[in-house]
């Protein structure tokens, strides 16, 4: 069993159109490094200065990782990771 990673529309250019890919690692940070190895360029869209970008949301089993340790949040086989860009803007 792997970790299911749900990819938002805007990042599917990196995954060849795949809506979900398999991930690995023991933390979200490691998982993103592994994604980067397969889908070069995706990390830059998710991480800035060693933390999750301000307008990117990452959830592990429905929990926003901002509240569970950020990139250090643990992941394990069978978990589901969802990546969603913020829906935000300003005048």
């Amino acid at each position, binding site marked *: 069993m792997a970790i299911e990673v749900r990819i*938002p*529309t*805007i990042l599917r250019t990196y995954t060849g159109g795949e809506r979900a890919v398999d991930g690995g690692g023991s933390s979200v940070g490691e998982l993103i490094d592994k994604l980067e190895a397969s889908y070069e360029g995706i990390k830059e869209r998710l991480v800035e200065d060693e933390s999750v970008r301000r*307008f990117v*949301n990452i*959830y592990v089993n*429905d929990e*926003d990782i*901002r509240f569970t340790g950020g990139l250090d949040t643990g992941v394990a086989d069978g978990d589901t990771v*969802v990546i*969603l*860009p*913020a*829906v*935000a*803007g*300003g*005048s």
Partner: protein
Amino acid sequence: MLTIDQATYDAIIAHARKDHPDEACGVVAGPIGSDVPARFIPMLNAAMSPTFYEFDSVDLLKLYREMDDNDEEPVVVYHSHTSTEAYPSRTDIDLASEPSAHYVLVSTRDGAHEGGPVEFRSYRIVDGEVTEEEVRVAPAYTDTAAIEEKAEH
């Protein structure tokens, strides 16, 4: 071109009036590939600000999960500007992440909360490029056949 039914159009404007002077925001979901904004979903502006909007992160996950379960996508993403024109700001453009959505901007700057006019405009925002499009307000989608027929094209 954005084709939207009168009831949804009115609901977006009513939401913007109600939340003025804060920005109002939401989505109109529709069947994937249909380009039909069918299900109006007003969202809470977690920023509760007159100059910024952001969906709450928990609400956002719930919204996308619901749309996934229903085979829907965000056909319209709307928000209001309360003291500037209904045109995407630099931040709106930078953060636009749904290249197939119609980005609807409404402006309530001309006293809309007191019954004044509301500007309603629609755009495509793709790779930082903004293209305004025509808005056609249709009577109610009276039967699903019309929606299904459109989905086939």
